[in-house]
């Protein structure tokens, strides 16, 4: 892509100053990427969306027919290297395709489970033979894939699986027994990636074909939403799986599982970007059309306020997610052809940004839930009726906070991984926290300049200090027992998440201003100002709560006074700015980023 100059380390944004030219923003997309995104968008809007109602009744035949059509256009092959029958696109383009599928509601889940968690374990960890055997037909949509990790008794605790695998006497096959629950695409998938414990202890991944004896699926689950997608239990009864179908190494299944979770998380976040933008657009259109008191409801300030809040969240999500995907793409830009075929290398690249993957998953799924909720509200009573798109959006959105690791698990992962990176010497977090302590003693409030984004950058700088203060205090106070302080850990994760999003919008807007000037970036600037201020206020609240939970007496008073100095600034009038932001949306009759 050549848009950015150097590779950024995962998590390093907390201790380093990242510049605008180091990050990828949606505006950096090439013509070719746009054209591919357009093909995905046209396909979804013209071929899939006219059938939404039928799909919603779980017409799996239609689902597979449409997926095949997508395969004919190459839309299923983005993450599969050319050597194995795919197209091997960069991660930004692959992300764009995922985003464009989002408006197709839960059809996008059938698509996502197939190209993502279903096919990728083989792409990344398959042997040469496995890749040649399975990937060409998966990349074109002749066959479909599903991923089977969860069990009735093991959700978040994925490694607690009870499914077993035992090598037969001849030493040719593993005999699998067990049940895998809530398996997306299970109603029509030909290939399942299944985790089982060899001899009851060695957690291992297997490629299981649906035609093997003993493979059956249970009835379709009755779900709150995502009704177009197939969700069944996968039942394995004495299934003989050839030993060539072991994926990765025996006992190393967790490596595959965790890597696929990283990917599942960022892809989920990309999907949420598409969902957020669509929900904003649908709401703006409705608000412009719906007349009450003889005027469109979009002319009322309170509706405008909602539209602005929604768009700002969508902008922050979009900026954060594409920045992350851009980092993968940047690293993979330097890949040789051999590297590209080497799945482990790809997985490693993404694992470098495991923290960012979790942050995006949490932020994007909660943004979408908020936006879908307000979308229903703007629609009033009609929003409660199934006829209107937002009713489905609202129900469909909810699952995103649960699967691919609940948001709670993902929150806990952020500080624990940061700490691990700090301990391994990959991130100088502890040193920085130390320096900050000295700095806090003689902290003088600063007055940022009035140039565009100066105040926002000042708030960002202080937010990073607040993070170091809160996280450093936790480590100092609790040491390894910190893992029991889950509320504190979640607060830290939220602070980090807000920082990542703040920085992402600031840098995106800064890049836009550099490219097309302040006037043309006015809308972006307004959204950035509002988002950064509100995120900063959230951080302040979280930090305060955390400090009070950890310290007391004089020490606490001192810390609170330092926090007060760090959070002193002259706020902007967000009410007025939100009216202006809404004005742009209403005029464009759509989401504008």
């Amino acid at each position: 892509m050549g848009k950015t100059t150097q590779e950024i380390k995962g998590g390093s944004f907390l201790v380093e100053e990242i510049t605008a030219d180091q990050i990828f923003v949606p505006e950096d997309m090439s013509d070719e990427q746009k054209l591919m995104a357009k093909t995905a968008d046209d396909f979804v809007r013209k071929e899939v969306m006219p059938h939404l109602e039928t799909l919603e009744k779980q017409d799996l035949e239609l689902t597979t027919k449409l997926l095949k059509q997508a395969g004919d256009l190459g839309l299923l092959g983005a993450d599969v290297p050319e050597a194995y029958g795919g197209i091997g696109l960069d991660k930004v383009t692959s992300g764009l395709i995922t985003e464009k599928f989002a408006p197709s509601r839960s059809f996008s889940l059938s698509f996502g489970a197939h190209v993502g968690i279903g096919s990728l374990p083989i792409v990344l960890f398959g042997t040469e033979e496995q890749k040649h055997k399975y990937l060409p037909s998966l990349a074109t949509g002749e066959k479909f894939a599903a991923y089977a990790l969860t069990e009735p008794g093991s959700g978040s605790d994925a490694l607690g699986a009870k499914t077993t695998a035992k090598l037969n006497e001849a030493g040719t096959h593993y005999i699998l027994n067990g049940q895998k629950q809530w398996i997306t695409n299970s109603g029509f998938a030909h290939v399942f990636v299944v985790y089982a414990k060899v001899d009851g202890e060695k957690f291992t991944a297997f490629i299981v074909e649906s035609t093997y004896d003993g493979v059956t699926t249970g009835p379709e689950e009755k779900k709150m939403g995502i009704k177009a997608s197939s969700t069944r239990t996968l039942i394995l009864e004495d299934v003989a799986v050839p030993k060539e179908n072991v994926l990765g190494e025996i006992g190393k299944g967790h490596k595959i599982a965790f890597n696929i979770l990283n990917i599942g998380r960022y892809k989920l976040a990309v999907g949420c970007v598409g969902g957020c933008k669509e929900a904003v657009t649908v709401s703006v259109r409705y608000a412009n059309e719906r007349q009450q008191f003889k005027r469109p409801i979009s002319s009322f300030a309170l509706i405008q306020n909602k539209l602005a809040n929604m768009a700002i969240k969508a902008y922050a999500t979009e900026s954060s997610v594409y920045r992350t995907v851009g980092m993968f793409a940047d690293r993979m830009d330097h890949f040789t052809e051999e590297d590209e075929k080497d799945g482990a290398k790809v997985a490693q690249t993404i694992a470098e940004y495991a923290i960012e993957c979790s942050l995006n998953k949490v932020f994007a799924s909660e943004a979408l839930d908020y936006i879908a909720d307000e979308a229903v509200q703007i629609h009033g009573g009609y929003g409660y009726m199934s006829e209107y798109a937002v009713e489905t959006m609202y129900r469909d959105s909810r699952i995103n906070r649960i699967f691919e690791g609940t948001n709670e698990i993902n929150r806990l992962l952020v500080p624990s991984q940061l700490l691990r990176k700090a301990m391994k010497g990959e991130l100088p977090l502890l040193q920085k926290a130390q320096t900050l302590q000295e700095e806090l003693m003689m902290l003088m409030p600063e007055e940022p300049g009035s140039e565009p984004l100066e105040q926002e950058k000042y708030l960002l700088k202080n937010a990073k200090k607040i993070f170091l203060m809160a996280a450093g205090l936790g480590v100092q106070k609790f040491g390894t027992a910190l893992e029991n302080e889950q509320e504190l850990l979640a607060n830290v994760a939220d602070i980090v998440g807000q920082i990542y999003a703040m920085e992402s919008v600031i840098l995106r807007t800064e890049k836009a201003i550099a490219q097309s000037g302040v006037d043309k970036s006015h809308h972006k600037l307004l959204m950035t100002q509002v988002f950064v201020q509100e995120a900063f206020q959230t951080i302040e609240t979280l930090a305060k709560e955390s400090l009070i939970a950890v310290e007391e007496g004089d020490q606490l008073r001192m810390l609170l006074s330092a926090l007060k100095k760090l959070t002193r600034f002259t706020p902007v009038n967000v009410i007025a700015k939100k009216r202006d932001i809404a004005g742009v949306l209403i005029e464009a009759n759509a989401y504008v980023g």
Partner: protein
Amino acid sequence: MNIFVLMKRTFDTEEKIVVENSRVSDDGVEFIINPYDEFAIEEAIKLKEEHGGEVTVVTVGEEEAEKELRTALAMGADKAYLINNEDVENYDQSSTSEILAAFFKDKEVDIILGGNVSNDNGTGQVGPRLAEKLAIPYVTTIVGLEISDRKATIERDVEGDQETVEVELPVLVTAQQGLNEPRYPSLPGIMKAKKKPLEVLELDDLDLDEDEVEGLTETVDVFLPPEKQAGRILEGEVEEQVAELVKLLRTEAKVI
């Protein structure tokens, strides 16, 4: 078969038209392949699939039109030409057809396909003017096309009715909505398009001077249609309303 397509880059159909200083502003506008030209491209690719040969797409326009040419290549065209017209000051449809005529001077042509009209200026002149200059027959607003033994059997839309025309090749046809469903450029197609030949020609390369292709028309003014005013509901007995209506049509609207 030597198949040529005339293509124009135009505003996206969803764009709002903004007039500034008596010209349509293209600030921040999204561009597309003129939808009627898209039918032409699709038909050309289908002809190639059926009869073999080569599809060449030609556009006269600005450098940015390369993007739309790449899209046509991604759909399945084989090569593309962009003839740069940026130096021509007073430009109209006669200019385009003059330039295209020069381009086609040394080309072996079996069929040229274009859109029936462009969705911006909508004159529908370029195709017929070009055919005239090349001295080949032309058929406009086609909705069906079969070719065998160098004879084209064409269905054309005649104000909602259909007419069947037979014509010898070479011929120029312009596409009407209904001719086909243009395909989406597939992802592999988009990747291949990068490597397909796309040549940019200057007027010089066609042995043309800017003055030779100056337009024949003069644009006096450009303005948007007046905004729609709120309607009026007449009241009273039907006869009174009719009388009132007639009066208003005479005095206010001045249409009778």
